[in-house]
């Protein structure tokens, strides 16, 4: 996929910057208090399959999105569960696009330690039995890290597929098929949200026409009602309820939701509001990520 010019020159190894959006304080409020925006650093990487001049590969860019705003930089790592009090934060995330050569679009999305690789093929030929006369047929295949795909994967595939269908302009490519293949590379909590983000980035990379972008956000509620965004695997297990939402980028409407555990109606609204705020950061990250990719700096 050679739509990028070769970005020559500058050295390869650059500083990796961590990023985190911290929102609110102990009493959860959807206002985003202190988010710190840092400068992005772009890192070039060789395409898989290597070559002896790793930095000269066309069409591959790795981007690490880092976000920061003003001064307050909280104690960094979210790897160990921090104190519940000082608000919620999203983990460090990173995205890499166009890393596979065969699919029309591909992306790898990392959220903390959770990592998902997505590839998109399409619009392509479709089996007659599956074709729809006025729209594109969307198919999602989710492969777990180990073992064979089971019923839980089918359920998640349906969720991701319906989310993509709501957003992709299928009417522009009737009687074709768009296939999204997701491979779980590592799972450290918030897996479904990471899959959704990877799928979105891969669809963008493939150039599939969409009416909006979408992102996945996970919220966990623990037994005393404290809200945690983007929980790790340990936090998910200990939580009373885990809610995953997919929100669109235009009006932050709820596209998809799936929940686990018991919670009240008021808590649902609270989580939804929190997710909507968090999604602003994710979309900002998408935008910066893509701007970086196509900018000539």
């Amino acid at each position: 996929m050679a739509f990028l010019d070769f970005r020559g020159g500058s050295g390869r190894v650059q500083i990796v910057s961590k990023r985190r959006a911290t929102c609110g304080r102990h009493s959860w409020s959807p206002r985003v208090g202190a988010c710190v925006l840092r400068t992005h650093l772009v890192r070039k990487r060789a395409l898989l399959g290597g070559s002896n001049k790793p930095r000269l590969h066309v069409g591959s860019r790795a981007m690490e999105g880092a976000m920061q705003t003003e001064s307050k930089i909280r104690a960094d790592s979210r790897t160990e569960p921090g104190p519940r009090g000082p608000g919620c934060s999203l983990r460090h995330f990173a995205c890499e696009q166009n890393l596979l050569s065969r699919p029309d679009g591909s992306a790898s999305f990392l959220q903390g330690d959770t990592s998902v690789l997505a590839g998109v093929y399409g619009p392509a030929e479709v089996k007659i039995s599956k074709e729809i006369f006025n729209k594109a047929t969307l198919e999602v295949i989710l492969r777990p890290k180990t073992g064979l795909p089971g019923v839980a994967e089918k359920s998640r595939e349906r969720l991701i597929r319906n989310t993509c269908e709501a957003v992709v302009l299928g009417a522009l490519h009737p009687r074709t098929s768009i296939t999204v293949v997701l491979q779980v590379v590592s799972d450290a909590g918030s897996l479904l949200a990471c899959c959704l983000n990877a799928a979105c980035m891969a669809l963008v990379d493939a150039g599939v026409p969409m009416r909006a972008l979408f992102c996945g956000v996970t919220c966990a509620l623990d037994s005393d009602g404290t809200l945690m965004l983007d929980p790790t695997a340990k936090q998910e297990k200990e939580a009373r309820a885990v809610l995953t939402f997919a929100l669109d980028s235009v009006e932050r409407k709820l596209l998809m939701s799936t929940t686990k555990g018991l919670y009240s109606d008021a808590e649902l609204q609270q989580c939804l509001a929190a997710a909507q705020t968090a999604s602003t950061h994710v979309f900002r990250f998408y935008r910066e990520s893509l701007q970086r990719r196509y900018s000539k700096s």
Partner: protein
Amino acid sequence: FLMSFRTVEPLEYYRRFLKENCRPDGRELGEFRTTTVNVGSIGTADGSSLVKLGNTTVICGIKAEFGAPPTDAPDKGYVVPNVDLSPLCSWRFRSGPPGEEAQVASQFIADVIENSQIIQKEDLCISSGKLAWVLYCDLICLNHDGNILDACTFALLAALKNVQLPEVTINEETALAEVNLKKKSYLNIRTHPVATSFAVFDDTLLIVDPTEEEEHLATGTLTVVMDEEGKLCCLHKPGGSGLTGAKLQDCMSRAVTRHKEVKKLMDEVFKSMKPK
């Protein structure tokens, strides 16, 4: 002319009704179809129920068998749901391994059981680490006219309330289980999760209890599972058009009223069964 219009332009046909705030079968937008429930009709099963939501018919049979408890939870039993959508219920399904819709429905029911804690799995344990009850819940759809998830949840709940497990004692000498079929007891059902499904039309209109035709024309669906105290066990929205927080609130309030209707129906049915 009207019938051919319905076949050629189903969406337009529906829109004309929706503009008047009603649906082709005469229902209001927030009205459910007639729900009927019949409990205990399958003699060979330990618990059974038949639920009809309009034309959608789901039958649930529960068989209890012995099994070894899982090694990481030695004092818990199993509840294994399986939703079977056979070619009998709709032209869309073929025989063979379960298709996507059946798998999604099975996963949904498993999630509802898990999240709502409808029965304590510890109640199913007979001897910690050695023997536990395994409840195989088979939900078979006999007629698919939309809103399969609501019907399945209701059927499961009614069947679980109908399950009678015999008393089991472990004979210390032989270490074998002795089943006393004469002494049976009901399961302890802690909560009553009730599902309410909605379909979203044209990104704005929400209708309750969609039929199969409406599900097909809808741009999105939403299922809310609520228990007595207004707690949500599951908010299942598999994609589709976006919804705002306010619309979700309306759905919640409708779910609360639906819960009351269903609870009343179930109490009536079980009251009429008691003197057995």
